[in-house]
């Protein structure tokens, strides 16, 4: 029994090591972006909006619309729950999350600047609403 557990533990550790070596990261599977969403993000086809949701940056396609709607519905559910827990409105919480999500963009990703235009995140700080922390 002890030997078996040991073997299992070793196997899991080995698998994790291989996954880390291959992927370069060891984030749990449930926390990863859907590949289509990840691809659209890095291609700059979708971007972070000021209101806490994502939007289509260039020409709209049914595929992009589906990705954006899917993410935004899920975000809205999370915002709604957290807003309630913090005695805040959905809009207040979403706008705050928008501040943070824009700050969390990686270089090359798109975000919406306070003038409403789409910007590409550079190495420096993004342009954000003056109320953002």
């Amino acid at each position, binding site marked *: 029994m002890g030997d078996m557990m040991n073997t299992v533990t070793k196997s899991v550790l080995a698998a994790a090591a291989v996954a880390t070596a291959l992927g370069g990261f060891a984030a749990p599977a449930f926390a990863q*972006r859907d590949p289509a969403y990840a691809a659209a993000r890095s291609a700059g086809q979708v971007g972070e909006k000021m209101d806490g949701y994502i939007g289509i940056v260039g020409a709209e396609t049914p595929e992009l619309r589906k990705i954006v709607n899917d993410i935004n519905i899920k975000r809205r559910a999370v915002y709604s729950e957290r807003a309630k827990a913090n005695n805040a409105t959905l809009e*207040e919480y979403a*706008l*705050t999350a928008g501040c*943070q999500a824009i700050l969390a963009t990686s270089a090359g990703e798109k975000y919406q600047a306070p*003038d409403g235009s789409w910007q590409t995140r550079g190495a420096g700080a993004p342009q954000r609403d003056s*109320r953002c*922390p």
Partner: protein
Amino acid sequence: MNHAKLTGRMAAAMLATVALGGCITVNAPEEPIVIELNVNIRQEVIYRLAEDAGNTIEDNADIF
């Protein structure tokens, strides 16, 4: 702040209109136009929620 400026500009424009006898001049604003999304949301509310929102993003990395 922006509202005060805007009101000031409108007042100035109205004065100019009266002074010039009905001639209206519209000047483009020198500062970039900023869309204040949800102007009713105050900065202190955003500051209060900031930490929780940051955690929410980390905990739901698949949709952010």
